[in-house]
């Protein structure tokens, strides 16, 4: 059996060290090893977006990244979106617009939306829908999610 690999990475701004096996996904290590439960497993093959994190500034599905791959890299999870001052505007707008029902897909959507606004602070409705097409929500019909993202972009 392969021995465990030592990985050093920056997660939500803090340097983190952990041991993992090469076959473990970043999602698995975030949840099972690091206790960061905000990223959710919905499909475990890149089709639902519930496990979205930002890796080196780019949005990725953490189920499709090996934990060993993040050596020396920086990762932002849903737990790192709010600031010490309070909620991120996206988080606030998701609550205000009732952009969630069960809330399971919500962390993935917020992380994805943050990645969008980081690179396009003023997206159109179509751009928001296109960007969020990799995130599945079964409760809301997306209507309020799209409105929340557009409103957060405005504020």
């Amino acid at each position, binding site marked *: 059996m392969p021995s465990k690999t030592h990985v050093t990475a920056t997660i939500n701004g803090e340097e983190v060290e952990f041991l993992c096996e090469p076959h473990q996904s970043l999602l698995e290590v975030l949840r099972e090893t690091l206790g960061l439960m905000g990223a959710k497993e919905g*499909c*475990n*093959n890149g089709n639902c977006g519930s496990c979205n994190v930002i890796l080196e500034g780019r949005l990725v599905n953490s189920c499709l990244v090996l934990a060993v791959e993040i050596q020396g890299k920086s990762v932002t999870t849903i737990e790192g979106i709010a600031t010490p001052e309070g909620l991120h505007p996206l988080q606030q707008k998701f609550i205000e617009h009732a952009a969630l029902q*069960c*809330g*399971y897909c919500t962390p993935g959507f917020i992380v994805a939306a943050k990645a969008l606004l980081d690179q396009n602070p003023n997206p159109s409705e179509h751009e928001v829908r296109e960007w969020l097409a990799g995130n599945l929500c*079964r*409760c809301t019909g997306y209507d309020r999610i799209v409105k929340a993202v557009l409103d957060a972009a405005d504020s």
Partner: protein
Amino acid sequence: MATLDKPSEYKVIGTSPLRHDGVDKVTGRAAYGADIRLPGMLYGAVLRSPHAHARIISMDTSEAEKLHGVHAVITAKDFPDLESRIVELGEGLVNRKYQSNNILARDKVLYFGHAVAAVAATSLHIAKEALDLIRVEYEALDPVMDVRKAMEAGSPILLDDLRTDEFGKKGETPTNIAGHYKDACGDIEKGFKEAKFIVEREFVTKMVHQGYIEPQNATAQYNPDGQVAIWCSTQGAFGVREQVAEILEIPISNIRVIPMEIGGGFGGKIGVYLEPLAALLSRKSGYRPVKLTMDRSEVLAATGPTSGSYIKVKMGADANGKITAAEALLIYEAGAYPGSPVGAGMGVIFAPYRIENGVIEGYDVVVNKPRTAAYRAPGGTNAAFAAETVMDELAEKLGMDPIEFRLLNGAQEGDRRVDGSAYKRIGYLETLEAAKESAHYKTPLSGPHTGRGVASGFWFNYGGKSSASVSVNKDGTVSLLEGSVDIGGTRTSLAMQLAETLGIPAEDVRPVVADTDSIGYTEGTYGSRTTFATGWAVYETARDLIEKLKERAAILWEVEKDKVTFESGVFSSGDKTLTFKELAEKLDETGGPVVASAAVQPKGYGPGFATHIVDVEVDPETGKVQILRYTAVQDVGKAIYPVYVESQIQGGVAQGIGWALNEEYLYDEQGRLLNTSLLDYRMPVALDLPMIDTILVEVANPGHPYGVRGVGEVPIVPPPAAIANAIYRAIGVRMTELPMSPARVVEALIHKP
């Protein structure tokens, strides 16, 4: 029934406070079932059948048991061998033997993905490795995948002991037909004779899944004293407790179910799959906690779905547009064990209309597919797809506007359904009027290959048992314990009813969803019942609390209790007044803490009606249908928490659109499910949909103190029919099979008469 329906006087109801669990859910802190971690916890995995229909000849688990890290392996032999008996297990009625066999197959596997064994090990990787070491010898049998074939004489039989039930009369020979039902009124032959136009069509729909994003999960901790705690994702904790007790034959008092946050259910998380396995694995592995989670392919292959169906509808109307007769045959797939929602489909199919001469016949048929579970207005969407398409065609033949045709025939208070029962106050006609007056309907649609469709829908809604208890805090806030799992904002819709009754802000209520040892019995979050029934429990609790607080005010003011009045959050007696908050601060001076509770089983649930309008554009070369605009009009009784009422409607519409256009279970000839991922089970993505407009019509339900009707289910009923009707207006073909996928649209165009 008295109603407090004076909208202008409501201070909390009808407003939009921020949901109480909002921050937890946008920061990733909300704890869902799979987020639980216990010391010494083992991880489980389930071995599933590669066959759709096979006899289990033998099973050998010895190699798996020897694998380092494996702590327990279970098969159906570890389950009590239950006798057939119909029981109410918090998800409607089920045969306990069948439910047990569905959770772990005993003699036969009846669908691809049917569970046959489970393992607990120190890691998920080891557990999965162990599954590969379990040897199962099968004798493959011919699968039965189509309901009409399953009904034929000579079809392979799934369940040797199954006999057709016809309202209390059992058939005598083995069959795949579990139930045969019939409703009739008037004189159907006479009705068709009076018709000037008659439309008759056959419809086929495929099995579809609820598609909740959170896979099923369950964690169990068995103790040597026989007590077991279960943490899981469920729509109803008490239902889980009953099902586990029945299947494992242990007393309910030995089971505590802690409902975790739930990532969607839509009916699919009422019945249990993993909970009894986790409990048994925990017991067998030396009382270590065991966590089981499904992956997406397991969810699709072995949980949910709702029935595919074959439906025939024949309707006639006279020259004036009055419906003279309506006849329907509904055959629904139950999946591997009896229990399709065909009865509900029969109840939905002509529900919006005055039918003087009607016949509705239904069959519940087992096939080699997963045992169906409830899915949002179960059975309703299939039925409405058929009837509302025929309605559209009749309107066309009559040269009438489809809304006018429905207005002419729409049911109202006092009208009888085909099953003979009479409607109380309902708001169907109001939804039609609102649809007719909507900006959407009044805006002409233009452009090549575009079309507008209209369809209506009905759902019964439900009441059921609910409990609530509250305690008053010194700072004037109120803690609310309730047993309804919050899938879509019900903590707040319940807190709002409490706040309204107590005259305090919704923010001053702290709602908590409690486990089965901490609150009175409460049925699951299903049947569009939570805001209605648990809302009623909360209302009764508040009334009880007010009486108790009046006593405290009386003590404080040294007057008789009946001299204390309460209105809009203020207690008064003569010129003395205390707000709720002021009185709360003084409880210690008047006898200490105050708590109140109530348990209810309200009967006055009122049905919901909806009318939807949709514009589509069809690409006639590829067959792709784009939804351009959508408006859903619904009688919601009274919208307690309007933003979440709207969101329920939008979500139901989105699921209905998915069902209409792309979602379906695809099986190969051996009965193996082909599309077991969210890539190939095509639910709508954000780019597929437009904004979904809603119009809330409020015809107060006379059976609820605040006029609440259920709202969650009816919005999934009209969409496929509305879209089919829109496609017809766009390209001139009647689509009679769901989903109306691009391939089917192109095929229909090629064969266009």
